[in-house]
């Protein structure tokens, strides 16, 4: 097997990176291991290695996660991270998973409306509770009507 870094020399060492509930193995030649300063049987250097070409200054504007933090924890903070880090994540995922492209089930057109309605329902239910607690029955009955309408629509 050829080295995963230089793709020239024969790989003699393998490194396992454990993250979350799974792990990945890389096969590397001795020279590359020395050059990258890799410690045997240690996960962290590999994760850095996999990401070493990435732009560390990127920040996700949705959740505030920096690429540096991601490189350390290897956990995304939100789905927006995939948009912001997308380009750099692609090559990382290819190394990690062997492919950067999803081939499985595709999601039917995302139904954002439904989600919005459900959010609204939760808010109305809370308001209803409050109204009842305050004995504001007229408000409560209005909220109930609105809820009934929404729940029928969902």
């Amino acid at each position: 097997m050829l080295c995963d870094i230089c793709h020239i020399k024969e790989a003699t060492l393998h490194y396992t990176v454990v993250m979350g509930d799974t792990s990945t193995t890389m096969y590397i030649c001795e020279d590359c291991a020395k050059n990258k300063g890799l410690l045997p049987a240690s996960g962290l250097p590999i994760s850095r290695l996999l990401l070493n070409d990435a732009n560390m200054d990127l920040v996700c504007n949705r959740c505030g996660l920096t690429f540096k933090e991601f490189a350390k924890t290897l956990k995304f903070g939100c789905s927006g991270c995939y948009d912001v880090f997308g380009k750099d994540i692609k090559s990382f995922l290819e190394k990690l998973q062997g492919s950067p492209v999803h081939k499985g089930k595709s999601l039917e057109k995302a139904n954002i409306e439904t989600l919005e309605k459900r959010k609204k329902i939760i808010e109305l239910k809370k308001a209803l509770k409050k109204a009842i607690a305050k004995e504001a029955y007229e408000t409560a009955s209005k909220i109930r009507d609105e809820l009934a309408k929404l729940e029928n629509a969902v």
Partner: protein
Amino acid sequence: MQFEDLIDTQPLWLNEEGLSNEIVLSSRIRLARNLKGYLFPTRAREKELEDVSELVKDAVTKSPYFANGLSFKTKHLSQLDIEFVRERHLLSTKKRTVDCVVGKGEIVSALINEEDHIRIQCLASGLNIKAVYPVIFEIDEILSSNLTYAFRNDFGYLTSCPTNVGTGMRVSCLLHLPGLVLTKEINKLLDDVMSRGFSVRGLYGEGSEIEGNFFQLSNQITLGIDEEEIATKTEKEIRNVIDLERETRNKLMREAGERVEDKIWRSYGILKNARMLSQEEFVNLSSAVRLGIGIGLIDNTYLKLLNYLLLYTAPAHLQKMKGKIMDADTRDIERANYVREVLKCT
């Protein structure tokens, strides 16, 4: 159903049915999903997590598999109860923000706000990936028509950890491989298995030690491969391991039959007579008896009892059964008493 009723009901995946049950204890598929528009649980605020929890619980209970089930929050559980649900494979972390919804018989369960917003799993006893597969995707369908998942066409289902992205799907089987361990062929096999893109862990999942010759084998790759292929390839890999284990058992009996038989009957004798048993000792002795059943030495009606004991002699289960916190020595005594009592009635 109430949380306190759990201890008195046996999970259905514990029964000894299913293919290759002398080697495969259980099969499982889990899916990781997140909701669009909400930060992942590690970075979300409490209020946001509460909203997610309400949305997901609402959607989950629309599936008939979750009818007459149970729902609880880890926040409200004692330390003992957390251990108890971990032993039951309903939970894999000690995180205190998790909501858990469990279907009747514990065949299906959903974890909300663990590492991802949603983790749904389906379990069956024996080698039964084909039975689990349609169930988990039926639940997924219901969820996806009631919720908006975080999804991109290029990366698939978006998850907190990049090792789950794509299908978010993990297929695993719990295997009992004493033959391969005894003949020391296990290490080479595990190397092969891992080099083909599968991972292997101990009885209780992430970070747990290999105990009692139990191994959890699962797919590692979730991206660039579709769901059916993951299921088929993992099952093929598992069938290969089962064949090797059977071959090794035959070889072992041919070459060292007396020695193996002696080990099995001694273990059986200790289980039936011991006055103190640590969990480790129980797991190892019962592994030998399980091998005895596998090679036809001991009647296979024992298999169901062993499966049951494996769960109910774990520390938290033992303490829940007795209804009190016990120190290690007391647990060992109660464990031995319990094992004797259960094995006596056969």
